[in-house]
């Protein structure tokens, strides 16, 4: 595969590889889909969580602070106060 030179030259080198790569990926996706279906992937309802992460008040406060900070930055930026 030609990896040097002008962009059209590199594209010409990549194109022949595109079909086998794409078709191979699609075939793999099909088999993985069936394998996951065979392991009840599409079962309705809530899944079991083996590890439930701790969620203390300080964690919740940080999450809310991050959301508020994001909104504040967007507003400040939109109103031109952030430069």
């Amino acid at each position, binding site marked *: 595969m030609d990896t040097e030179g002008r962009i059209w030259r590199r594209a010409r080198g990549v194109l022949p590889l595109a079909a086998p790569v794409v078709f191979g990926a699609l075939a*793999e996706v*099909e*088999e*993985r*889909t*069936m*394998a*996951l*279906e*065979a*392991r*009840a*992937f*599409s*079962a*309705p*309802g*809530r*899944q*079991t*969580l*083996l590890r439930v992460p701790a969620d203390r008040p300080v964690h919740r406060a940080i999450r809310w602070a991050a959301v508020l900070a994001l909104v504040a930055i967007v507003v400040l930026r939109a109103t031109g106060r952030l430069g």
Partner: protein
Amino acid sequence: MAIELSAVRYRYAGASAAALVSIELRLEPGRVVGVAGADESGKSTLCLVVAGLAPGVIGGRLEGSVRIDGVETTATRPHELAQHCGLLFQNAATQLSNTTATVFEEVAFGPCNLGLPVAEVVGRVWWALGAVGIESLAPRDPTRLSGGQGQLVALASVLALRPRYLVLDEPTSELDPAGTRLVAAALARIARETGAGILLVEHKTDVLAQIADEVVVLERGAVALSGPAATVLADPRLVELGVEPPAEVRLARAVRASGLEWSAALAEAIE
């Protein structure tokens, strides 16, 4: 209690010819039925049909009847079928969920999808790892295993759903002799200890000779030979059907061809 296929004919979506025709098959719990045949004879399609993924997930047209313990697969949803009939493919890598950090979590993936209580999930995972004999792999990264180990993890992942039947599509085809021995030994143990009915598609007839009770040989989507494993695997028509007989059968023929007498004692001594 059994998987029963009656007058089954299946055609893939968009295909002009049927991949399976006139299939009659019965698999009871505790029995191992081997399936052999040349490439394109319909073995993998049979696996998808028996497990209900064809036409349930991949489409196509199914005629006849496929029943698991008396219930038509076409009337059952895939996640419900998964709890009755587990399916294992050839390639261990494409069977991993790619969402887990350890083998333990990978095996727990199916039971977690069912929303079972954590204690039940943990119990099933240790049972499945024990049934396959890979408890020591529990903390390992599932993407960093050998082919044989990966296939055993995939097998344990299917077993954790506690299916009454297992459908295995050439589980040793991408394994070296050591990996093949690992998987074959695990299958023999599962058949013996869990009472699961196993449909085993396998090119390696030595594996079938080792663990199958009956063998079915497919040719162009139809059953060409069927019967007790020892009888079918010694059938002279096997080669014409594109299936290599087990080593013991080939050796016995070679011994007889050279004018010597083949005996069970000789076979045992060689083994």
